């Protein structure tokens, strides 16, 4: 089982990228699970297209629930999970992520669904202990950071990389690489190359700033499903292949 956590500045396109990578891998016959780690609970919306209770909604209800209640099956058979979070403006979102991921493991999600690939799509930066949960031992093995050439995205990526480095003696996930999601800003390639150099990592995928993504989103679908022949779909497929290669899966497998 390959377990990947994806981090990056809020609004940088993590959920869209992860959903498309998940769809691309599912298309190749892999069993993929995508776990949204964000109180907004919108990570998997392009895959499932329908409402789904979050893990924390179910826990909070106080009634018994099964593993199946926590998931919905989306495009290509992708197993979609949303961790959810506390009431906006109260509680602790980070602690919520821990509780949700623990509940998922306690209910035997990984043993029951036996996914080949698990994506943890994590809200923004590693702002507190809760948001480092997906990279802890027993969860993701590799972390990939999505960034554009915008300064704030680069700063967030550098912070995340610093957190991963700080955890190197704890048996946490290692940094797999940087994904550039272009915003077509000035010196974009140069700035991201400098980031990679600073944090000692490499660029593992590049995605164009394309209107196709917005059009697919308008349809409530991934690009892979809505525009499978598009150049953007090819870019997502290439990215998914690249992620698998870095995680040690050969093309043949």
């Amino acid at each position, binding site marked *: 089982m390959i377990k990947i956590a994806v981090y990056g500045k809020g609004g940088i396109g993590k959920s869209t990228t992860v959903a498309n990578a998940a769809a691309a891998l599912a298309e190749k016959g892999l069993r993929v699970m995508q776990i949204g780690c964000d109180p907004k609970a919108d990570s998997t919306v392009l895959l499932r297209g329908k409402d789904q209770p979050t893990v924390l909604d179910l826990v909070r209800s*106080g009634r018994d629930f099964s593993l199946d209640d926590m998931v919905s099956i989306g495009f290509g058979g992708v197993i979609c999970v949303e961790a959810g979070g506390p009431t906006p403006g109260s509680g*602790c979102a*980070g*602690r919520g992520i*821990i509780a949700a991921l623990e509940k998922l493991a306690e209910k035997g999600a990984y043993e029951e669904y036996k996914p080949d690939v698990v994506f943890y799509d994590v809200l923004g930066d590693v702002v*507190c*202990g*809760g948001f*480092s*949960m997906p990279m*802890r*031992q027993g969860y993701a093995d590799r972390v990939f950071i999505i960034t554009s050439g915008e300064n704030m995205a680069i700063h967030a990526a550098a912070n995340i990389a610093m957190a991963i480095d700080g*955890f190197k*003696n*704890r*048996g*946490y996930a290692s940094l797999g690489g940087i994904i550039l999601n272009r915003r077509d800003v000035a010196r974009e390639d140069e700035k991201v190359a400098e980031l990679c150099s600073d944090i000692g990592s490499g660029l593992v995928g590049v995605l164009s700033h394309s209107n196709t993504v917005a059009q697919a989103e308008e349809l409530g679908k991934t690009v892979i499903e809505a525009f499978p022949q598009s150049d953007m779909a090819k870019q997502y497929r290439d990215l998914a292949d690249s992620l698998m290669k870095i995680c040690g899966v050969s093309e043949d497998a």
Partner: protein
Amino acid sequence: MSNLKNQTAAFISTYASDTSGVCSALYELGGMTIMHDASGCNSTYNTHDEPRWYDFDSYVFISALTEMEAIMGDDGKLISDIVSAAKELKPKFVAVAGTPIPMMTGFDFKAIANEIERQTGLPAFGFDTNGMHTYVSGAAKAFRAVADRFITDKLGKTSGLSVNLLGATPLDFSVNSSLQSAKELLTENGIETVSCLAMGSDLSEIRRASSARVNLVLSYSGLDAAKLLQKRFGTPYVVGRPCGAFGKRLMADIKAADRTGKNAVGFAGSSEGDILIIGEGVFAGSLAAAIREETGRKAFFASATEFDDGLFGEADVIARDEAELRPLIGKSRVLIADPLYKPLCRGMGIRFVPMPHEGFSGRIFRKDIPDLTRSIAPLLEQL
């Protein structure tokens, strides 16, 4: 409101916390245990939950977590303090146990233990206790971790019948003669005690635990360790605490387990009746079985601490709060429980028989905690 109703403790006290359970379970093993909590919170443990505090040296510390350290996630200071203390004190292992504050900040106990182990070269454990469960839950985690880490060598079984005692802490046994009486009873029945997890045995004895032929689970906190040892060495286990006439049944169960390799829970099979016992599940169940055996009266129990319904008789229940306990008490004629449960009987017209429990009322009634291992006669006189 419904949730509030089900979590009320308006009249009764609460059990010692899971954090205290970890400290209590590890107290005699030569390690260094750190409660990760604000300074001052250690007194709850050493004043109320640890009767050995003044008579038996042990390295139990509090991290003295400050408000800013909690907010800023300054794990480095904790690690550095622990590593420095460990290098000076040279404990056999290090354990860090959690409390509500680190739970809320998402503190990663296992990862911190890994770092401490890497820096000190000592075995290190991280327990994600959070003060919201009873001592039974914390002690169970500690006993399982000790078994997993230190009982690894597959030794030859003893030639004669032998047991390990699993799940012994003063929170269940206090510091009277109860545990010693249990060991003597085993000896008289030709059963050698290889080790006791964890009162009266040091780590070197515990490391020899795989040579025992059967494991005797004295409280629910010992069950996870028993399951692990069964998986690792094939050792069957018997659940129950020697108690009056039930002790005889327990000795027979141990012999049968040795012969057949099958586990046994000797106190199961109760039916709802006129005598209700509230307490830690294995003790309450064993006492109920002894009363049934000696009086023919119907006795059943409510485990007020963590328990497994697979160990139940048909009438027995897990009941943790007043809303669940009151209807059970109302259906009974006699309640046997810690004295701090007595207010729940008010107006119910039932007889209350006090059975002090260190894990519930701490030191308050310690001198009145009886040794019922060989005889429950003094208790029967009050029924």
